[in-house]
């Protein structure tokens, strides 16, 4: 029995010499690894046009069917995206989402990506229905870590 106590104490002692792993959240925050799958972002091209063309492939790939897309035709004078088509409605139910990343994989233009953000608590279930205005970034350059992700994919480019 004594031997067991000694072994326990030894373990405690050993850990007190090791470096700390606990992070003082929210004062301190961990750097997320490359490829972390957090809250979705809809990205833009460098010229500000939306990448998403409303093709609905993400919604088809989603195993829990939590993406809803409605497409419409671009006004050639004031296009929203490149090509003729854009997503007039884009919604993700983040409560249903299992953060599998299939949508990102399916997207042919690198529009939908899973970002690094994991802090998105809400006080009502309805608020987890993220609409386009919640998902769309203002400038893709503000998210260098996301840019790297779609740069790795071979993407469709448009004439």
């Amino acid at each position: 029995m004594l031997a067991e106590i000694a072994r326990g104490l030894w373990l405690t002692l050993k850990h007190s010499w090791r470096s700390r792993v606990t992070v003082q959240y929210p004062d301190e925050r961990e750097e997320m690894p490359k490829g972390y799958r957090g809250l979705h972002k809809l990205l833009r091209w460098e010229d500000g046009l939306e990448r998403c063309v409303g093709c609905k492939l993400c919604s088809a790939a989603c195993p829990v069917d939590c993406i809803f897309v409605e497409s419409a035709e671009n006004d050639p004078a004031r296009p929203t995206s490149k090509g003729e088509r854009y997503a007039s409605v884009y919604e993700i139910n983040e409560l249903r989402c299992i953060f599998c990343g299939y949508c990102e994989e399916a997207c042919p233009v690198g529009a939908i990506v899973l970002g690094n953000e994991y802090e998105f608590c809400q006080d009502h279930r309805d608020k987890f229905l993220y609409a386009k205005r919640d998902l769309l970034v203002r400038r893709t350059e503000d998210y260098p870590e996301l840019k790297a992700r779609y740069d790795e994919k071979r993407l469709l480019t448009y004439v």
Partner: protein
Amino acid sequence: MADQEITFTLNGEAVAAKKGEPVLEAALRRGLHIPHFCYHSYLSVVGQCRACLVDVLDAGNGKPVPKLQPACATPAIQGMVISTVSPRVKEAQEGVFEFLLKNHPLDCPVCDQGGECPLQDQTMAYAKAVSRTHELRRIYPRKELSAYVKPEMNRCVHCTRCIRFTHEIDGGGEFGWASRGDRTEVGIFEDLPLTSIVSGNVIDICPVGALTDNKYRFTARVWEMAHAEGPCTLCSVGCRQRVWRAGDELKRVTAGENPAVNDAWICDVGRYGWSGVHAGERILRPLIRREGRLQPASWPEALGHIARRLGAILRESGGGAVAGLGGAWATNESAFQFGAFFREVLGSNSVDCRVHPRDLAQTEAQLAAFGAVGGQGSIAGLGRAKGILLVGSDPFEEHPILALQVRKAARGGAAVVSVHPRRIDLRLHSGLRHLCPLPGEEARALRALAKALAEAGAAPSGEGAEGYAHALASADLDALCREADIDPREAREAARALRPEGAEVVVLAGPGAQAEAAAEAANLALLLRAELLFASTGPNLQGALDMGLHPALLPGGRPLGDAAAREACQGAWGGPVGAAPGLSSAQVWDALNERRVRALYLFGCDPAAEHPEGARVRRALEAAEFVVLHASHANASLDYAEVVLPAPTLYEEEGSVTNLERRVQRLRRAVKPLGEAREPWRAFAELSRAMEAPMRAHALDRVRLQARLLCADYAGPLSRLPEEGVRLARERRGAFRAAALPPAAPPAGGLRLILAPALWLSGSFAASAVHLKDMPRAALRLSPPDADRIGAGEGDEAEVELGGRSLRLPVRVDASLPVGLAQAPEGYLAALRGGLDAGAARGGAAVKVRAAAAAPRVKVGG
């Protein structure tokens, strides 16, 4: 010989084929896929895309063919051995696909074809996974085609299916190509816009997203949708189609395949008519008129109200005081139940599905000649006929897919004779002969044709033959032709053309075959030993008649006078059936005015607008004590109704319908009914309960069981229907009726107006179909000299004055009209409530037309 069965070997598997048919067709039927783009089962074979190259290891004679062969252009021969997997085939396939993709934009995510694209699918299956293209792709200037077909020619793979469709099937020849090599550009000729009523088919056959559906554009993806396959219910042809929905919304309609009816084509009315389901003035809930206004009510309230009112009338005046009209726009099941409700619950035989006098005349003519309606001909027979007689029919405007069948026959060498006041256009270069009688004299022209046939040696035989032979013998061809205003020489030529030795002839009677012309068409069919088709406007007129919606016929077409038939009905329904025939739709109006009939039940019909004698009908509706309107859309008869019940459209109902060749097809519900609409057969059962005389058939299978018991030839179809339906043909035997022709009308001076239905303009359903608004607008058609005379050009407005009323319509200059004749779309004039009554006058109504003053342009959009 041609149908000889042979077998050949494809990749080691035995494939059965008809001798000489393309290897590709046989392989596809067997479920063995060979890539292909230009080949289409219903178009000519051109063998130009080269995607289908195969290796013929043994051409049936023990020797291999040195070069690869296109499977679409290689006839199947007994004992052939073919490989599609040999290294040189693989190499060829990869090469063909690489060249196809060299200029094909990679915009599948934007393209509507994505997900149902033969290029996408076959590229995945047969092409190399990597692209070596670094050059810029070819870019065509952007052009528009039509309101329905959206072009994106950069995607075109030059398969020429669209070109072949418009040249061979549709005949308009709108598509063509320019330039050569990889600059080849497919498009339409600038002076030949794509306005054909079957233009939408190019969307279905284009194997890429070069031609897509402008109305469906970007509204859904194919993988999000489900489809119901079944007959189109907008006219009586019943083309097979697919109705696509996403969730509870209809999205589009595409063509289905039925070689016996529509091959693989549908018309644009069938393609876009669904847009009337969600739009327009749908009746969403029951309405009861209170204090002069129709106000929403619940089903029990509305049914209770009807039960009370009808109950009182029954008690005071008996069942004969209630009449019912309609049923041609309902399923067989609902039509059956409508008749059963009248005969069993109300004890009235006054129930009639033939609201338009034309339908009445045509069905009565068939009953007189054959003892039954329909079943005397087939649509497929029309397509392979060697002679065709069109009576008062302009199929491209009335039943577009029949026009394609007539064209198919003409391409196969058939002689086509049209008896119509206008020189109708079938887009045929040869083979079409016109006999253009004065309007209303079609019967006389037919009699003249019969006389010419008799001169050429055709002898009537069978029942009534002597009488008819005598009538023909005593007829004077020249006098008949003079009175009908046709050329006797042309009549003789037409007669000769229609009598190819021993070949099949089909008589197709359209909406213009009214009154005596319908009877004469039956005589001619007997004389020519021809198949006979009557093309009605109501989609299920044939089925409704078979289900007993006729004042003197019980379900199954058995006469009311037949005690055994009445007993059978009593056995099925429980109540006795009166032996005295009821009032037909022709008699009902006077009876209403004279108060012999007090209540009128309108089931899916709109006599106030669609009856040619509108004023008389509206007076009768005014006089009626109690009118029920049971329909899907608000129409002109709504103003007279005291109770309105909502009905589903035929896109929203399960059941069966019967087309003009008496083919019973299964209708599948594509979406659930809008609002509170419930199936009419159910509504009748509930109404009977409210009247405390519950019908036995309170479930669909019960209705079907009764219908099967009472309509002998429907027994099979109603229990098990194959996908392509069952055609209930009847024995082709009838009796000649040598009725004297009415005296020729004195030559009328001035302009006469005839009304003819245009499929996309008639009826409240077409009126609410928003996508049909891009079809040609309702117009007054005038011959060029008449247009000149009034000083109106194409598109100008004209003021039409008729019977004291006037109406403005845009003018269409139409060289197919003879001088002195104008034409306007039927139903349309009347659909403007309280419109013009033109159909009553035989030979067209005298009409005054003048160019309208330019200032206040009234928009009369179709």
